């Protein structure tokens, strides 16, 4: 070419390479455009995308088990699900449950696990009440040995290992981290207590229980640690530590605060520790291996359990299996929702097409009147329209009365037209009809009438002219209306609830039930996610088959 003399990049007027200068100019333009749409973008992100992401997340989230019973989950990891777990697991459960009961989080976990296994809810509720009594046995025994065990100040000093002792800050921050997870809030600040390194080596359980108590007392109760008598769980933990003969040996050479008192306690006879018996005594269901299995199965922080439930499956010890026949419901409901939404869409096309054609082709005075008739029900309350159908369709209703009066139907055999699929389809077709007519009308308006006349003048019959010339041009309107009606129908809730009876309800009625009544939001989220996925797949299929470019909303 001609620029053989110039080898470097093309330069702009100010000497910078043209490419870079162009990019800079474009970037500024892009930023300006972005700034203009930013309010909308942020609005959509906050009010639309974020809730959907949150919902998707809820359908797999399951951190509550691990957060509430961390030690139990750890101990259960190697449990083989054959028999009731051993004492070690029950001890972990006792300490976990004690803290959870103090924080009033145990019943939440109970209701969560009750979704998977009936009966767990009351198991946690009753045992949460009893854990204090179980621990009190050890508190009484220790206080009998030395009344100083009652003193809050003595405990605080004993567990801190005395002034100037080496501190075990890791233990404390671990326990505070645990409290943060349990209470779902952040705790910062100096609680005025640090466990001593030596004493927490000798009495590991006691130090852990006391550190949890100290953190809870300061952050949640807002009290001073050294002024509060420890929980019963701390005494139980001390009993557990003293049960080990090695503790007495270690204590013999210990010289921290209250060393004598601890040595006396180690030498004395304490009540035997049998947490397994105590917990089973509190509620005999703790002996049932299937309850433990549920806890073990649902201990990971994320679960597929909700999704399995949403497709009528469940986790069993032998893997994933279909639920028993009398518990399957969601498969039926998904199929029914699809089928009925399609029926409603077809009825809307069949009823809406002629009306849209009239609207587009009548002289404007008549078509305006017709338009008002289409829009009038659109402006009426949804509930009023649905209830009106009840009055029309019920057995003692207007339609049946007229049919009986005409002698078409015998008084004893009045037609059942409501509280079934028929009622839902009729009422929803009526309610969704404007969503079909309006897009069809706006497309038909753009089809010049001269085309039909031209076809006819070239010898086409009325039918051929319509079918070969007019109809293909109106397809984008049908497509837009169908997508609109179908997607609205699939998520409809109030109309099926009122006129659907038992055979005409949709999946959305179950979603509503789980959101507002059973509070199983995880399952509701899973059902909602599946519904969303189905709609997206159908949309994609529509795009592949008909082409989304063929859709015209106006």
């Amino acid at each position, binding site marked *: 070419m001609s620029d053989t003399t110039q080898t470097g990049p093309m330069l702009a007027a100010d000497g910078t390479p043209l490419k870079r200068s162009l990019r800079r100019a474009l970037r500024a333009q892009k930023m300006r455009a972005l700034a203009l749409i930013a309010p909308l973008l942020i609005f959509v992100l906050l009010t639309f995308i974020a809730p959907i992401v949150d919902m998707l997340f809820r359908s797999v989230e399951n951190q509550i088990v691990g957060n509430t019973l961390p030690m139990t989950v750890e101990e259960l990891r190697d449990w083989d699900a054959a028999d009731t777990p051993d004492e070690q697991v029950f001890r972990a459960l006792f300490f976990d449950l004690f803290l959870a009961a103090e924080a009033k989080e145990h*019943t939440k976990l109970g*209701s969560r696990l009750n979704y998977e296994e009936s009966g767990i*809810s009351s198991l946690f509720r009753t045992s949460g009440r009893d854990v204090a009594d179980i621990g009190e046995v050890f508190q009484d025994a220790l206080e009998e040995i030395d009344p100083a065990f009652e003193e809050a100040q003595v405990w605080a000093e004993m567990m801190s290992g005395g002034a100037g002792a080496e501190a075990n800050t890791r233990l404390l921050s671990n326990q505070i981290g645990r409290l943060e997870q349990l209470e779902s809030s952040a705790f910062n600040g100096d609680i005025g207590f640090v466990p001593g390194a030596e004493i927490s080596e000798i009495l590991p359980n006691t130090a852990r229980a006391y550190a949890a108590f100290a953190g809870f007392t300061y952050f949640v*109760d*807002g009290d001073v640690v050294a002024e509060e008598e420890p929980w019963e769980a701390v005494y139980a933990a001390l009993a557990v530590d003293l049960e080990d003969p090695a503790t007495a040996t270690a204590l013999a050479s210990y010289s921290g605060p209250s060393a004598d008192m601890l040595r006396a306690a180690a030498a004395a006879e304490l009540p035997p520790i049998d947490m397994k018996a105590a917990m089973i005594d509190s509620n005999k269901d703790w002996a049932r291996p299937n309850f433990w299995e549920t806890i073990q199965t649902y201990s990971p922080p994320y679960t597929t359990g909700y999704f399995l439930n949403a497709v009528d499956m469940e986790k069993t010890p032998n893997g994933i299996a279909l639920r028993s026949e009398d518990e399957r419901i969601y498969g039926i409901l998904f199929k029914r929702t699809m089928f009925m939404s399609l029926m409603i869409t077809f009825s809307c096309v069949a009823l809406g097409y002629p009306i849209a054609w009239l609207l587009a082709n009548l002289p404007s005075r008549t078509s305006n009147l017709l338009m008002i008739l289409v829009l009038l029900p659109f402006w009426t309350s949804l509930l009023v329209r649905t209830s009106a159908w009840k009055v029309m369709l*019920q057995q003692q209703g207007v339609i049946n009365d007229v049919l009986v009066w005409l002698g078409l139907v015998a008084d004893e055999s009045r037609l059942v037209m409501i509280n079934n699929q028929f009622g839902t389809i009729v009422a929803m077709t009526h309610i969704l009809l404007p969503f079909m007519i309006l897009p069809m009308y706006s497309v038909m308006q753009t089809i010049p009438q001269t085309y039909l006349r031209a076809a006819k003048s070239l010898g086409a019959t009325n039918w051929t002219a319509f079918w070969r010339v007019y109809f293909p041009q109106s397809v984008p309107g049908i497509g837009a209306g169908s997508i609109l009606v179908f997607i609205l129908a699939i998520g409809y809730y109030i109309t099926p609830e009122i006129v659907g*009876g*038992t055979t005409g309800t949709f999946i959305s009625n179950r979603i509503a039930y789980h959101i507002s009544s059973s509070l199983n939001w995880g399952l509701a989220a899973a059902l909602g996610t599946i519904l969303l996925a189905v709609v997206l797949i159908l949309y994609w299929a529509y795009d592949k088959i008909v082409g989304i470019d063929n859709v015209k909303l106006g």
Partner: protein
Amino acid sequence: MKLTKTLLATTALTVAAGTAVTAQDMANSMTIVSWGGAYQDSQDKAYVQPYLAANSGVTATWDESSAEAVAKLRAMNEAGNVTWDLVDVVASDAMRLCDEGLALELDHDEVLAAAPDGTSASDDFGDLIVSDCFVPQIVYSTTFGYRTDMVPEGVEPPSTVCDVFDLAKYPGKRSLQKRPIDNMEWALYCDGVAKDEIYDVLGTDEGVDRALAKLGTIKDQVVWWSAGAETPQLLADGEVFIGSTYNGRLFSAIAEQNQPIAMMWDMQSFDLDGWIVPAGLPADRLARVMDFLKFATDTQRLADQAAYISYGPARASSAPLVGKHADLGIDMAPHMPTDPANAGNVHIYDYEWWADNRDDLDAKFQSWLAQ
């Protein structure tokens, strides 16, 4: 977090002790959540308006959201912005809210007024305090009403719950609530299970099948309702012959609208409705709501409420004070579910049992309905 909790604790204590709380420490407005309709009106007339009259400058706003209270409270709690001060819920929802930590646990003897004769609040309410978070107001029942003009000729009007299952003697449609609670118990009772064994039987798979099989004998003839107003409407239109609903709804259809409907109290299912205070209220709002709660649940106020609606007051000491209907002037006592003439054979619904088994049975029940 810490500060609010401390404040909460201290205010709760001071309110409880009834000392040192002056009107300045209390918020001037309350948002009270209830069910709307005649029931909310009865609350408004019996204690909200009297309270506002006695405390000038205080306003109360109603929110008719009790039906979705549990879900909404949970959402508010997650969002960290609880806008409600006092919520009217049924007992089973109160238990659930308490379990979820969404309702405040109360010491009934400290926060509620004692009976005029000095009986402590917890003794006066007795067993009706089914949860630590719950302050009962009324006893209502789910019971049956039937069309008097649709009773077949020459046949006695229905007198037991088992007549609902007797299609030969009483043909026609029935309306039942679209949930397993009560229906399963009635079905087992009419299938020959002794009343005190119902929950033992229902706790087994065979028992559930048995109850569903019994319900199956009338399934074709049942209209399932989900809102309390449906049965009175179905009865008034002659759509059903007999149907279950809340007794207060039937009372207004019979006494206020003069419909040809009569009550059938046999095996009526007692349930409770009452207040909960949401957890996590700021101190001034908590102080106000506690002050109101003490007033609104005292013996006289609960008895006053019975002049507007036929639900039994939850306090034992209120029962003798129940008078006449405020507008109709009829004696209210015979219309109370707790009246001895009506309470000959009642079904006491087991909250703990249903809290445990509700999800499981609901799945089976819904699956049975869908088939």
